[in-house]
């Protein structure tokens, strides 16, 4: 595979993977039960999985749909840039780029929203501490996570882009 195409492919896979996970998330139980069933045809399983993706238009607000698509896109681009950076420059991330990448991915995952119930992962993982109550206290009712994620991923992409084009030179200590 051509190297350039490989990174485009990686970005696409990362974006699509994140998007599919985000949209299926409220119904992972349904996805799992249907996929493992032996008495349901492959065609029916695929139909259900594809139809669930349509909930981006019915179960998300305009804001949460745009935010999910943006985070998924930037997530894929970020993954491809990190892979390129590590492979070509032989270095690992640290400092701002590491914080922005990890923070962007983390807040994006936490902020994946079932529009009807706020931040789904947060409320799924932290029911005992009343995540729903915490979200209700936030001024934007959980949209903060999506905005934070987009911001951090953009910072990460920007920092990565600078690092990639930066010549490999020694800097004074």
């Amino acid at each position, binding site marked *: 595979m051509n190297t350039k195409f490989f990174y485009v492919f990686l970005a696409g896979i990362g974006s699509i993977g994140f998007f599919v996970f985000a949209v299926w998330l409220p119904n*992972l*139980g*349904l996805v799992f039960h249907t996929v493992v069933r032996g008495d349901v045809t492959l065609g029916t399983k695929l139909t259900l999985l594809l*139809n669930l993706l349509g909930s981006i238009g019915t179960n998300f607000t305009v804001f949460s749909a745009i935010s999910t698509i943006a985070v998924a896109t930037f997530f894929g681009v970020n993954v491809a840039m990190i892979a390129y950076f590590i492979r070509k420059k032989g270095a*690992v991330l640290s400092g701002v780029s590491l914080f922005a990448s*990890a923070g962007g991915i983390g807040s994006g995952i936490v902020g994946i929203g079932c529009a*009807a119930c706020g931040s789904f992962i947060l409320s799924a993982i932290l*029911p005992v501490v009343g995540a729903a109550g915490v979200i209700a206290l936030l001024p934007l009712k959980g949209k903060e996570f999506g905005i934070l994620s987009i911001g951090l991923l953009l910072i990460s992409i920007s920092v990565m882009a600078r690092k990639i084009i930066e010549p490999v030179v*020694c800097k004074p200590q």
Partner: protein
Amino acid sequence: MNEEQPKSGGWLLPVSIVIAGLMIAGSVYYVGRQSVAQKPSTTSDGNRDAVLGNLEAPVTFIEYGDYQCPFCGRFFHQVEPPLREEYIKTGKVKMVFRNFQILGDESTAAGAASECAKDQGKFWQYHDALYTAETADGKENNGNLNRDLFLMLGQNLGLDMTSFTACLDANKYGDLVIKETNAGKTMGLDGTPTSFINGEKVAGSQPYSVFKTVIDIALQKK
């Protein structure tokens, strides 16, 4: 090139990936456990279910909804019409609506009013009228779901207004609505609309095609 040296915090990325993975795994486990262990009762257990459709229908569709939830409104307008036409009128599916009034006092009051209409055998007509009125308004907790509206809807549906007004003013079903809502929370429900099709949980206002596929799978099992 200090920032790119492998020794400088290089462990943070793998750790963050592991944490993200654990969060995803935790959510998958939680969702899976919830959908298996906490299915709603589909039998008469004193919860006053008003059934739409043939009582002998092989598939039971239970919706937990809130009268102010815009996604429930979307479900009402986009999913219920083809569902009623294709499956309920044909006797394949029976539908039950249960109160999960989580968006405030107006939701609870609307739920209680619909229970008063249930006493007169017109629950589903009242349910439809409430969603039609609320989605036309489109705003939550703005005061539109009030006594005047409840009475007007009852009048329009030809309810016995003496008993309906008495039921409303005595807040006869306020506690019942809160009890049903708390029961939903105990089941682990965290949003509306949440549907159960012969016990299979479908969260959110999904496209009609999703519900159709899940119903067809349930019918195939029968």
